[in-house]
C-alpha cells in the first residue's frame, strides 16, 4: 500500500514539532496558570500523542478498521475510569442509615 508511506520530510517536521511541544510543556510548568497548568499540560500531551500516532504510527494513512481499534481502546479505558470515579465521588452524596 504505497500511500501508507510518509516522506522523510514529514517525519522531520513532526519530530521538530514534538520537540517544540515538549519544551513548551516543560516551560509552561514554570508559569503560574493555576488550574490551567494541568489542562494545558494534558492538552499538549494529547497533541503529542496524536502526532506520534498519526504520523509515526501511520494512522493518518490507515484504513478505518485500525482507527476503530484505537478508538475502542480509548473508549473502554474511558469507561473504566469514568465508572470507577463515579463510584468514588458519589459515595459522599448519600450516607447509609445509622448513627
Amino acid at each position, binding site marked *: 500500500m504505497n500511500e501508507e508511506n510518509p516522506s522523510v520530510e514529514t517525519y522531520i517536521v513532526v519530530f521538530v514539532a514534538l520537540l517544540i511541544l515538549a519544551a513548551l510543556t516543560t516551560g509552561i510548568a514554570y508559569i503560574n496558570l493555576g488550574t490551567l497548568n494541568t489542562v494545558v499540560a494534558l492538552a499538549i500531551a494529547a497533541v503529542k500523542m496524536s502526532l506520534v500516532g498519526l504520523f509515526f504510527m501511520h494512522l493518518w494513512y490507515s484504513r478505518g478498521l485500525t482507527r476503530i481499534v484505537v478508538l475502542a481502546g480509548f473508549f473502554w479505558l474511558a469507561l*473504566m475510569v469514568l*465508572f*470507577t470515579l*463515579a*463510584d468514588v465521588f458519589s459515595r459522599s452524596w448519600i450516607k447509609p442509615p445509622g448513627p
Partner: protein
Amino acid sequence: MMRLHLIEPAGALVQPETYNKLFTMHGVVMVFFFLIPSIPATLGNFLVPMMIGARDLAFPRLNLLSWYVYITGAAFTLYALISGGVDTGWTFYTPLSSHYLNTHVITTALGVFITGFSSILTGLNFIVTIHKMRAPGMTWKRMPLFLWSIYAASVIFVLATPVLAIALFLVGLERIFHVGIFDPAIGGDPVLFQHLFWFYSHPAVYIMILPGMGVVSELVTCFSKKKPFGYIFIAYSSLAIAVFSFLVWGHHLFVSSQSVYAGFISSALSFAVAIPSAIKVFNWTATFYKGSISYQAPMLYALGFIGLFTMGGLTGLFLASLATGVHLHDTYFVIAHFHYIMVGGAVMAYLGGIHFWWPKITGRLYHDGWARFAALVIFVGFNLTFFPQYMLGYLGMPRRYAVYPAEFQVLDVMSSAGASHTRRRLLDSIRLSSLVRPLWTRSRIESLERERPGMGDAIAASHR
C-alpha cells in the same frame, strides 16, 4: 471434596483453613484454567479457520506460544496448589490478599497473570483471523453463528484481560513491598482492587458463556435441520452482550461500600444485559418450531443448555435487583446461580460441542446411546446438586463457610448426594466410555451416513 465436607453442619472432612483453600483452588482452576479457555481453545482453534475458509489462523506460531504460556501459568498455579494452596477465594480481595495472608498468593496470582496472556493472544488471533482472512464471498452475514460468538468473546478477551493482569500485578507488588495503592494505611482504597478485578471478571463470565452460546446455535440449527431463526438478531446479540458486559461490574460491589448511586446504575444496566441473552433463547426456540428434531447426544446437551441457562439467567435478575441482591450476596443463591450458568450452561455446551465435532476432529464415531445416557445422568446429577443450593441461599446460608447452622443440613445433604463421588465417577466413566469406545471401531464419516441417516448431511449443512 467440598460437598462431602458439608454433609455435616460442623464440617465432616477438613479443617476450616483447608476448606478455604479448597474453594479457592476450585474457583481459580475452574474459572481461569477451564471455563475461560475451554471452547475457544479446543473448538475455536479448530473450527475458526475452517468456518471462514482460511488455511490456518492468522498467527499459528502465536497460537502455539499461547499454549506454552498457558502451561507455564498452570505450572505456577499447580505449584501453589501442591505447596499449600491459597485461601483468599478466587477473587483475591484486598487487603486480605495483599496484606494479611501468608499463603501462596503471589505464586497463584502469577500463574493466573501468565495464563491471562494466553487468553489475550488467543483472542487477538481470532479477531485478526476473522477480520482479515475470510475467503472471498464470506461476508460477515454469511458466517456461521459460532464465529459471531467467538468474535464477541475475543473482543472481551482483548479488552478485559489486561485489567485483571494489572490488578493482580498491583496486588503482587503490594505484597512484595508491603505498601501499595490498595493499602488503607497510606490512604489507599481496597475497593479499587474490586473495581479493577470485576472490570475483568464480569465480562469474563461472558467469555465463558458466549462460545457456548455459539455452539448451541450450531447444534440447534443442525438438529432441527433448519436455518437459524433470526440469524441477524443472534449475531448482533453476541456483540451486544460483549459491549454491555463491560458496564455492569458494579453489581459485584453492592455491599462493598460502593456508592448507592453506582449500585443503582449497575443494577439497572444488569437488567439490560439480560436482554440479548433472552433474544438468543427466543430465537433458538423459534428455530425448533416446525423443525425436524432429532435427539442425538449433542442435541440433548443443547436442550439442557437452553433450559438450565434460562434458569440460571433468570436467577441472575434476583441478584441484579439491588434490594434482593444485597440479601442474597455471598449466599448459596449466588453459587447456584453461577453454577447453573457455568455448568448447566457452559459445560453442557462444551460437551455438546465436543460430541458434535468429535467425528470431524478425530475421524471416529462415539456411541450415541451411551452418550445420551451420560447426558441424562449429568443433567439429573447437576440439578440435584445445585437446585437445593438456591433454596439454601434464599434461606440465608452463606457461601465460603466451612460450617453452617444445623437447620440447613437436609438441603446440604441433598446437594452433596447429587455431587457424590459415586455418581460423578459413574457419569465420568460413561462419558469416557462413550468417547473411548470408538477407538475400537474405526468408523469414518461416510459410514456415519449408514448408521445415522441424515447426520452426515446435517454436519455438512452446519458448515455451509
